[in-house]
């Protein structure tokens, strides 16, 4: 028996391919959103930014909000950047090993360092904490720095615009009213273990991300293995038509520390589902 491929077969094959692909994609969405969400965070304009469109992006329809997450870093040079996404304090050798990275070689060995630097990112589940201990710690550090710089300024008489004392005061003000309160506080390969450790589903969201290791060394520093969160997946969340008004009627960004205290212009409830993919379930505000 021989089969002949007719135009009818072609039509059916193509239509079936399109239908099946869409069904699989939408089935995955339905699965992600089925049952109780894995976590639900109430984020504000402090944590969700409306990206500015440049070039071709100016024509982009639809609205997506960028999730503005950050980490607490041990690096004093980076400690006072509002959006620092570099090396987290908690991402040490033991944590890297638990994520599947090879940290067996001592960092002093040049060959080992070379091999280590060649390690590529791995997928990991990252815990995002909203307005928790990490944010309190960041706030505390900002207060300490502001007090220290103010004391120094008082001694030297340098307290005007552009001085360290004034910069530290502005940073503290922003930390209190405008900077993101969403911190990446942990990572691991097992969602259940992470959820057992961070049980509050309205404060801790588990999301997919990628961690990249690197070999940190420098003059006067002890060589060690460390890493950083290269990316949080789905860090741009689509805003459906029904919630756009609340978001778009707010000013594009929160006014940074200045004579007027703006505060966040909108509040958005973001749910994370079984596949850790987010979606917006409610939006309010707009000034």
């Amino acid at each position, binding site marked *: 028996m021989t089969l002949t491929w007719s135009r009818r077969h072609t039509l059916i094959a193509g239509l079936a*391919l*399109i239908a099946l692909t869409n069904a699989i994609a939408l089935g995955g969405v339905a699965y992600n959103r089925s049952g109780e969400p894995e976590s639900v965070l109430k984020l504000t304009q402090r944590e969700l930014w409306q990206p500015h469109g440049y070039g071709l992006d100016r024509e982009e329809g639809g609205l997506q909000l960028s999730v503005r997450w950050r980490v607490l870093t041990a690096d004093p040079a980076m400690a006072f950047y509002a959006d620092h996404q570099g090396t987290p304090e908690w991402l040490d050798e033991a944590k890297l090993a638990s994520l599947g990275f090879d940290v067996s070689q001592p960092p002093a060995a040049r060959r080992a360092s070379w*091999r280590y630097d060649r390690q590529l990112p791995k997928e990991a589940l990252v815990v995002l904490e909203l307005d928790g201990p990490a944010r309190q710690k960041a706030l505390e550090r900002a207060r300490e720095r502001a007090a220290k710089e103010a004391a120094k300024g008082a001694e030297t008489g340098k307290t005007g615009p552009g001085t360290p004392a004034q910069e530290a005061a502005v940073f503290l003000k922003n930390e209190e009213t405008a900077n993101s309160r969403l911190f990446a506080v942990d990572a691991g390969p097992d969602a259940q273990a992470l959820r057992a450790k961070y049980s509050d589903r309205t404060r801790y969201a588990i999301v997919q991300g990628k961690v990249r290791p690197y070999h940190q060394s420098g003059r006067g520093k002890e060589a060690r293995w460390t890493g950083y969160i290269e990316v949080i997946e789905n860090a741009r969340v689509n805003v459906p038509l029904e919630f*756009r008004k609340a978001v778009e009627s707010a000013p594009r960004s929160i006014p940074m520390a200045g004579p007027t205290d703006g505060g966040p212009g909108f509040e958005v409830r973001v749910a994370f589902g079984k596949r850790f993919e987010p979606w917006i379930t409610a939006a309010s505000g707009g000034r």
Partner: protein
Amino acid sequence: MPEPSRTAAQQRADEIRVFAEELARLEREGVVALTPAQRDAIAAHHRGLLSRFAQDFDIDRDTRAKQLSLGMRIASFLGALALAASVFFLFRQFWDRFSTAAQVVVLVGAALGTYGATLWIQGRESSGYFTKLAAMVAFACFVINISLLGQIFNITPSDKALIPWAAFALLLAYTCDLRLLLAAGILCIIAWISARTGTFSGMYWLHFGERPENFFPAAVILFLVPQLIPHGRFTGFGPIYRVFALLTLFLPMLILANWGQVSYLDFEEDAIEGIYQVMGFALSAGAIWLGARRHWGEVVNTGSVFFVIFLYTKFFDWWWDVMPKYLFFLVLGLTAVLLLVIMRRLRAKGLFGGTAR
């Protein structure tokens, strides 16, 4: 599927034209003398063939028509790209005016509608120019369909999307005899196989490009496809598979021959680069030999280009800093002359001879 393809019909028509010219020349020179009955029989047979080809495939009957046809092919190619881009930007610009349900309906409807339209146009057009335009738009709509679903529902990016895209491009390519979409499908296959190869080593799939060895399995598979699956009915498909296979092999090899640190191999950087330099020379020379044996012009040409590139990059490493520039380029020129002489001698001795396939 059409039998034979438009390209095959055009090739046969060209051969008929050349044959008729050569026969007339031979008759004028008195080499052969056909009887009127024989001449009429040949002419009638050729007329019948050309007439059928013209009706079924809208072929070019003479050189002038062929030149015009080339212009139409270029216009069709550029038009297809422009229309696909137009659809993409249309979706981008007006996307925010629809609810989520309407967006899904528009996306799925556009993919289904343009696919149906492509088959409808193909059934009514013999030249293939408009079919190519429609097929490119259909492919663009399907790619946009899946991409924007991912954006609307914040779906984590996955290499699995490459499978239906490749399948759809190949379906259109084989149905409508379109080499452009075959190339698109092959690129999707290369990306998917390479991503899968990368994930076997534990890397995240999007980083497959950071280890060029990930591309090698795709190169082998692509090279074998036209060997294992006859492509006689699809003129030009076999060479496209082979060229992409060689590019997928030699480009990563060229990178590894110069930047050994991106390799999977756990050797010293110099050793890795040395290994891939030797492999680059050996395999590109092998490609020239195999291409000549099998009468695969595209394999000979691709092998030759990469052999010269591998050679010149070595010359650059060795001599760019130490030689005066006039001498460096003189050496390059003389090397090219030497290669020409060697290949000419080999050709004259019949060392590249073999049975045509």
